[in-house]
């Protein structure tokens, strides 16, 4: 038993402070992005989510220049970008996509500037890699309370707007006719999405942040038909991906090239994708079994009919 444990968890795993912080932060962030991301997927806002994550690069690199934690930079610029998208995109879905693309382009332009200044001022490329691709083991422990508090705020907003979000995702017309302030709900959601994706950027980087926002919810939607269930499954899938990713990254220190270790973000994103494929396989299996059950029932019915006919004859 202990040999198995030792094979799974390399020595020092549970004693390491950074590992424990990574486990906690990773789980909290995966839960929030899972819950928030379910609406991103059903509202068809994956592109906006991706854009809000990537423009974080500009904020993160600017925060680094100013000596602040990148999370505040991610969040600040993502919220501003969310507002701009809403302002420029107005009502039409296609205008929205264009607005999102424009804001994304402008944000990445700023990121190019600030990342350049970062590397010249500190003469290291490490900061670029950390901002773009994240480093869960490097999350500073004093940030933990802020991360938990922001997560709690995001979850409270989702819980408050839960039914209005569902109804307006289903049909904005229907929601408006029932008196739901559709526009206000959309803006509130966009801001919450900006917060969630910034938290994801803090863990797996600005470029990969959408993987956590979209992947686990997309997996969950294949597996469950209830909105609450989808959020629970998405959260669990995200936590599993992050935790297993952390274990593998820690173990990879002993893999070739020895003494370097592979980035956690790689494992997390790879696992998210693997879970999505596995979710599809499970859903297909379930469908096949149901169809077989129905086919058997049908065959039984026809054979009984045939028997009856045989007797009648």
């Amino acid at each position, binding site marked *: 038993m202990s040999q198995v444990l030792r094979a799974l968890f390399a020595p020092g795993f549970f004693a390491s402070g950074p590992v424990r912080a990574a486990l906690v932060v990773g789980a909290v962030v995966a839960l929030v992005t899972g819950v928030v991301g379910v609406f991103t*997927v*059903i509202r068809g806002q994956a592109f906006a989510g991706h854009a809000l994550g990537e423009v974080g690069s500009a904020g993160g690199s600017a925060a680094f220049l100013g000596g602040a934690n990148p999370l505040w930079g991610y969040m600040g610029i993502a919220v501003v970008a969310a507002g701009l998208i809403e302002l420029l995109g107005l009502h039409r879905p296609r205008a929205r996509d264009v607005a999102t693309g424009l804001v994304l382009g402008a944000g990445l332009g700023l990121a190019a500037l600030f990342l350049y200044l970062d590397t010249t001022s500190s003469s290291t490329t490490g900061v670029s890699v950390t901002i773009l691709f994240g480093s869960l083991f490097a999350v500073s422990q004093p940030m933990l309370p802020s991360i938990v508090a922001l997560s709690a705020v995001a979850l409270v907003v989702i819980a408050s707007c839960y*039914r209005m979000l569902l109804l307006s995702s*289903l049909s904005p017309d229907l929601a408006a*006719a029932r008196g739901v302030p559709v526009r206000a709900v959309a803006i509130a959601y966009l801001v919450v999405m900006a917060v969630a994706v910034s938290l994801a950027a803090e863990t797996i980087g600005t470029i990969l942040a959408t993987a956590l926002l979209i992947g686990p919810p997309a997996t969950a939607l294949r597996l469950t*038909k209830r909105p609450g269930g989808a959020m629970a499954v998405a959260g669990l899938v995200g936590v599993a991906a992050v935790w297993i990713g952390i274990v593998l990254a820690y173990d990879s220190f002993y893999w070739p090239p020895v003494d370097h270790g592979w980035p956690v973000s790689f494992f997390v994103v790879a696992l998210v994708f693997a879970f999505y494929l596995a979710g599809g396989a499970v859903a297909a299996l379930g469908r096949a079994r149901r169809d077989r059950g129905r086919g058997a029932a049908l065959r039984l019915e026809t054979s009984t009919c045939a028997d009856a006919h045989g007797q009648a004859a």
Partner: protein
Amino acid sequence: MNGHHPDPSAADPILSVEGVGVSLSGRRILDDVRFRIMPGEFTGLIGSNGAGKTTLFRVILGLQAASAGRVLVGGRPLTRRNPIIGYVPQKVFFDPDMPLRARDVVALGLDGHRLGVPLGWGRRRQAVDRMLEAVDARHFADARVGNLSGGEQQRVLIAHALISRPRLLLLDEPLANLDIRAEGEVVALLARIAREERIAVFISAHDVNPLLPVMDRLVYVAAGRTASGTTEEVIRAEVLSALYGQHVDVLRVHGRILVVAGAEGPSGVTVEETDASAAAADAVGLR
């Protein structure tokens, strides 16, 4: 027909549209629309695509401001959210990935506008079950709504609109994209609701025929103008010709009605000028 009703409040119209006009970015969409709907009445809103049916619904729902005239719902001026009105919008697209069962959609009709997460599971579930029963949707209550057929989805939307106990049900082209059998089922269901629950049903359609057996009155829209009355009063060559501003023929074939546009009237004059059409236009409020 409601004039002799013993209950005086029931004799008041549930909806009265009084001279409503709508202009959108300089274009006149509706012009001097006026008609009334009584409680429990089944009224069709008939007109081709783009005639202004959806705009009229949006005005009644308080989602679109009228540039002229006024709308009274239950005797009172419009408010943004009117619990008296239930609404089934046109073309709700249910994505197959949407994590909602039929019963979840119906439940959102009860409290989808409220803050917070739903509480009171037992009572909520009972109300939803009763509603699903009423629209014959019990057997697919737990199916993913995106996987249901068009007719089944329509019944779920009707249940969604009815569960908040409205007195007026607006349905925007609910028969579009349904096969003939589902069409008949939905119409029969709506007629039953109007009759048994005394809910006024106001339903838009581009074809009048599926509604003929059940319709008490109709409002015909063409070129932004309307004529209202019984089928016999409105669907006549003189009335519709005046409405369209060009000659149209009304043909009755095996109890079905065909409205056919003709280039010119038989005598070559525009029909609006004849006395008969003027009288007919007066009768249906078209002036």
